């Protein structure tokens, strides 16, 4: 019997209830309770007063407000303050208008997100699993019912469904997705974040150009810039904590800090006058950058967001990290990478994806909506990737194994088309049948989407190093 298809934009309440029903049906078997998370979903589904609006990217309520606010600020003239939300919005807008700086944010679905439970569902097929495909804000595009909120943001996103990377090893797969090249023994390649930092971050910017929010603790500097040098290595924010040493120890008063820094500048300036070189300039400048960074340390502190914002993103780690990512991007960081762990579901693929994707859906959809409402999508590329997808075949443990021959990557923003599907797999999801792409094409395309000529070279120490794999090229006919 054909299942009833309920469109959320026609019957949002019925749609929400349907989602709950599906989820409850699937989760009653689980030992732990899902009600809290489901409650969020219900609430968010029901409270979006008029989801119809979301169909039209340029007419969302938030967008309208922002635009009015912007015009209002202009009308009020310089120096006039606009209180409340307006002040915040106009500030963000001003920051954006100030520069054409482009940004990239990467969601690394660690372990290998199942394309069949997310971007490329095959309901009804013997490989399809138990979940339905639901319609999205873009007529004709369906994604897994595990992503109901993301479905409402589909008009901002683009699904690349014909990915074939021919690499089923976690380490190697992650390497090629992050660097756009296959690992070679004799040399390392810089990761997308290092490349973005080098090409997109303003040279005089105070914020680090390459930030990786790691799921666990730790911190410090990553080892991901290869020959681009440590300057472009990631600053790692362990579990979203601020970078190390960003807070002045209590033992040093502000007064004392100023006195010692004045003295340092005096001494350094005299030394620089003896011989001014790029090296000495960079050294002294690093202290200025550090000072700016310290002044901006609140950017790293999501607790500065109103409680309602934290609520909107979800109180779990990923929610916090997404909110942090938004704050970072807003304050001029050119690359942020988040991880969501762990999708390596050799056992219990379906239950795990319910759990994981519920978190992801909630935080990610809010993130996309916020970027859109802040008019940041033009300048910000969103990439949701993994090291590979998961097998169409369901194994005896109700799991799916590693699968790189036909899987999906979700992108949005920049020059990516909105509300678009590119490429296709066959009915069972076992082969790419249309517009096949690989990691090299994707890497080129990410960069092209933010205005970087990926076919060019970096000059490193007098040597020309190709920005992206010179034997590959950007995806034809995708970018707008």
């Amino acid at each position: 019997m054909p299942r009833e298809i309920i469109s959320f934009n026609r019957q949002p309440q019925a749609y929400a209830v349907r989602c709950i029903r599906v989820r409850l049906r699937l989760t009653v078997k689980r030992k732990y309770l899902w009600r809290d998370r489901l409650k969020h979903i219900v609430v968010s589904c029901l409270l979006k007063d008029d989801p119809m609006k979301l169909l039209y990217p340029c007419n969302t309520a938030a967008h309208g407000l922002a635009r009015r606010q912007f015009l209002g600020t202009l009308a009020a003239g310089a120096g006039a303050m606009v209180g409340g939300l307006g002040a915040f919005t106009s500030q963000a807008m001003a920051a954006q208008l100030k520069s054409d700086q482009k940004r990239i944010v990467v969601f690394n679905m660690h372990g290998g997100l199942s394309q069949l439970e997310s971007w490329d569902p095959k309901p009804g097929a013997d490989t399809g699993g138990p979940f339905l495909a639901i319609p999205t804000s873009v007529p004709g595009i369906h994604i897994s019912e595990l992503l109901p909120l993301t479905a409402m943001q589909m008009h901002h996103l683009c699904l690349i469904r014909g990915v074939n990377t021919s690499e089923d090893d976690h380490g190697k797969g992650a390497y090629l997705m992050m660097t756009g090249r296959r690992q070679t023994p004799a040399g390392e390649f810089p990761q997308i974040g290092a490349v973005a930092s080098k090409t997109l971050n303003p040279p005089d910017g105070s914020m680090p150009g390459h930030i990786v929010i790691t799921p666990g603790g730790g911190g410090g500097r990553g080892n991901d810039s290869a020959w681009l040098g440590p300057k472009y290595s990631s600053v790692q924010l362990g579990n979203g904590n601020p970078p190390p040493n960003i807070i002045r120890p209590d033992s040093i008063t502000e007064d004392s800090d100023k006195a010692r820094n004045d003295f340092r500048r005096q001494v350094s300036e005299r030394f620089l006058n003896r011989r001014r070189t790029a090296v000495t300039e960079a050294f002294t400048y690093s202290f200025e950058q550090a000072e700016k960074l310290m002044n901006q340390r609140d950017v790293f502190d999501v607790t500065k967001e109103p409680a309602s914002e934290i609520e909107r993103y979800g109180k779990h780690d990923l929610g916090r990290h997404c909110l942090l990512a938004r704050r970072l991007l807003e304050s001029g960081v050119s690359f942020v990478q988040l991880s969501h762990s762990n999708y390596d579901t050799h056992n219990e693929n379906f239950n795990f994806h319910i759990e994981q994707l519920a978190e992801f859906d909630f935080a990610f959809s809010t993130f996309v909506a916020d970027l859109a409402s802040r008019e940041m999508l033009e300048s910000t590329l969103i990439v949701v990737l993994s090291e590979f997808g998961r097998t169409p075949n369901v194994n005896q443990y109700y799991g799916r194994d590693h699968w790189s021959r036909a899987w999906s990557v979700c992108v949005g923003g920049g020059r990516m088309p909105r509300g678009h599907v590119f490429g296709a797999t066959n009915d069972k999801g076992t082969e790419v049948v249309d517009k096949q792409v690989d990691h090299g094409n994707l890497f080129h395309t990410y960069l092209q989407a933010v205005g970087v000529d990926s076919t060019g070279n970096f000059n490193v120490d007098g040597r020309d190093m190709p920005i992206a794999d010179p034997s590959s090229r950007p995806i034809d006919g995708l970018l707008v």
Partner: protein
Amino acid sequence: MIARLRSAARAAFHMERGMMVRPVAAVLCVAFLCVPVTKSLADDVPPTPPLHDIINSELAPPSGPGWPQASDAEFLRRISLDLNGMPPSADESRAFLNDADPAKREKLIDRLLASPLYARHMATTLDVMLMERRPNTHVPQDEWQAWLLKSVRDNKPWNVLARELMTADGDSPESRAAARFCLDRNAEPHVVTRDLGRIFFGRDMQCNQCHDSPIVSDFLQRDYHGLLAIASASYLVKKKVGDKEVTFLAERSPTDLSFESVFDKGNTHRTVARIPGMPSFTEPVLNPGEDYAIAPADGVRSVPKFSRRMMMAELATNGSNRAFNENIANRLWAMMLGRGLVHPLDMMHPDNPAASPKLLKQLGERFASSGFDMKQFLREIALSDVYQRPFDLSDDAVNHLPAAKLVHQSLVTEQDKIEVLARDAASQSSDADNTFSAAEVAMIPVAAETDAVRTQLVDAQKKVDDAQKALNDATATFNSRKTFAETLQQAVEPLNLASAALPENSELAATAKALAERSQKSMAEVPALEKAVAEKTAAVAPLNEALLTTRAAFDGARQKLQPLLETVRNEEAKVVAARAAMQEAQFAATSAKSRLLALERIAAAGEKKIAVDSTVEQTASYEASVLAANKEMTEYMPVVAARTTDMQTAEQAMTSATAAVSTAQEQVSRYRNASVTLDEAATALKKAQAALPGDEAMVSSVNTLLAKSNAAKESLKASEASLVSASQMSSAATGQMKAAQTALAEANVELKRRQDLVTQSNAALMQARESLSTARASYESAMETIPTDLSANFALSQLKPLTPEQMCWTVFKVTTVYDRYVATEAAELEKTAPLTDEQKNDAAALAARAAEIEQRVYDKLKGNIASYVQIYGGAPGQPQNDFYASPDQALFTSNGSAINSWVVPAGDNAAERIVKATDPRVAAEELYLGLLTRQPSEQEVAEVTAFLAARQDRSKAAQELAWGLVSSAEFRFNK
């Protein structure tokens, strides 16, 4: 005179060292080493000049003699950081700076080289150079460090060290540390190939894995694969030792490598092992199966009869490989000077100009002939003027720049010749390449055929081996079964007899029966086994025959290949020679060209300096003439004033004279009129009298009239006379007036002249000033690149960022933490293991004690290095000498505990001395001497004084000052 004596003394000392080196070198040459070295040392050749003199003459300053030297303080910090990895303490600095001994720099160098810190610093430098901070996967860091440290302490020659690194397999405990080079690269052939090329031969041929470099014409795919043929023969093997799994290195028997360029697909090349600058290895031809001393198997370290690794180690390190020698010379040079003679260090190729290719060549040769003695080599570099050049481009130095023109001119004349040589050499090299390629093309199909036959031979051999094994097995089975059956048979007889003797024993009868049955059965099996043996024997023969045939085919193929290989080898020898000549000529040409350009810029800047100076002079002279003109003008002003007064007086005189004339004229005319009128009246009256004669009244009237007329005539005369005199006076006044006018006009002209002069000289001054500022601007823009040019040519010192380790140790040293630990450890040792009086006078015992203390302090403090490496180091496996500055470093300095906790006043450090000092000048001196190894300038003293006056809490202020210097640019760099 003194200088000459000193250099003679140095030369003598050097010779003595050279002689001391000889036995060491001789010991090293046990097997195959240093043949040319011992020869050159043994011959009675005239003494060569000490290396530092060669350095000085090859890298003479661009402007001839008189170039300034680094100050004592600058030299002290520089050499301490370069040889010991940390600066001296405040007291050590003070002692050195106050020392009046003219030989104190040389003594300091020797003291630093004898310090245990030299071994530590050198071991760290070698560690970073060799492993580039790769993680310790198979060999623990402590074991590796200890081995390096011991090697440096023993002053192990570089070639010996390199040979150990290249050949160690890690199978024995003593070879494990040296095996780290390959083991912790996981023996990955491409990684090892790249790093062999970079670290031992100065050539980063990463791009040449797939093709000849499109950027560097001298980096060839062939060279890469020559090294890869060595690296790819080695592989990792694991075995259990106790309960631990140990990984070590094994080697396969060599095979040829085939490769093709991705730019030229289908065109195959072959190579055996080869190292840069040398022809292919002469590898023995061994039949398959006969090529291993220990054949490969699980957990076994296979050993081929011919080892490419051993061969590479021998050929690279025996002193004859120029690339090997120059690479290490260049690297040690860079360690001291902050920049290689060729830079980057792994880009040694003819298109990358060297500061002096001749010096590089000599450094390589001299280093090899010294027996690869690193300590001696560093000492010679440190002694050179080139090492002791200043950081600042002082006025004194700038004044020398114009002289670069002469050097430039002398080079220009040579340049054309050098370029012609380079072109010729290049075309010869390319001709040799072409001939070689033709020979290779002829050889490759035959070699491929030989390979195929070889595969067949290996197959045939395997078949024979298998058949032989089967035969052996069958024979063994047959023999054992047969023996068994026979033994049984022999046993059956007596048992039957016994059974017959004891018929009532049924058990015995049953046994006998069973045995008889068993025996029969066994006997029945034998013929089948015998037949199997016969079959297997029969099977071996044809296989053996086939093997012989294949072997014959193989021998035939090899014989066919042999002459072709010979040709290839001969052609290759020509290629190698032609290429070496090309490299040298081309290298000379590019280097000379780059030097010419630099000299041109330097000379141009020098000339612009002269232009500025002469314009300054000109301007000064214009200024003087403006002053003079102004003076002249001012001086003339009173003259003009006087003449003006004169003129006014004359004018007044003339006015009054003119008035007198007109008064006189009036009088004259009045009297003339009166006289005429009276005469007319008199005449008329006379007529009337004639008409009326006798009228008395009339007569009297006439008379009165006549009298009156006469009186009038008298007055007229008088007035006419006064008119004449007035006129005369007037004309005199007019004359005077004219004269005064003329004088004034003249004065005005003169004034105008003088004024014009002022204007002119002012304009000239303006123009001169303008051209001065133009000249200055042009000079300044010309000077922008000059410090870089000068330091690239080692006329000025480089700015060397401290390595993470140097940062760490320097912070410990300048905060006296290091010295406090030394004191503690020394006291501890003195308590637990006091030196005897005899030992206290024994240099060796004292040195051993110093080394022990150093080791203990190192062990206590080494845990701190990691945080500096994390912040300031490069990524693992990447070059470590690139400088970068990032905000996280600044945050580490500003807010991290690593630095903040050490700058608080304690243990007699600079901060504490500042707190104690009552005189701010003393405080400033302690601060600068303690942290930057130099005395403060007057301005710096004033700054410190003002700072201390403005801050209330003296202790905090001292801490702030100390932090200010530790975080300053001057501290971050060694200059």
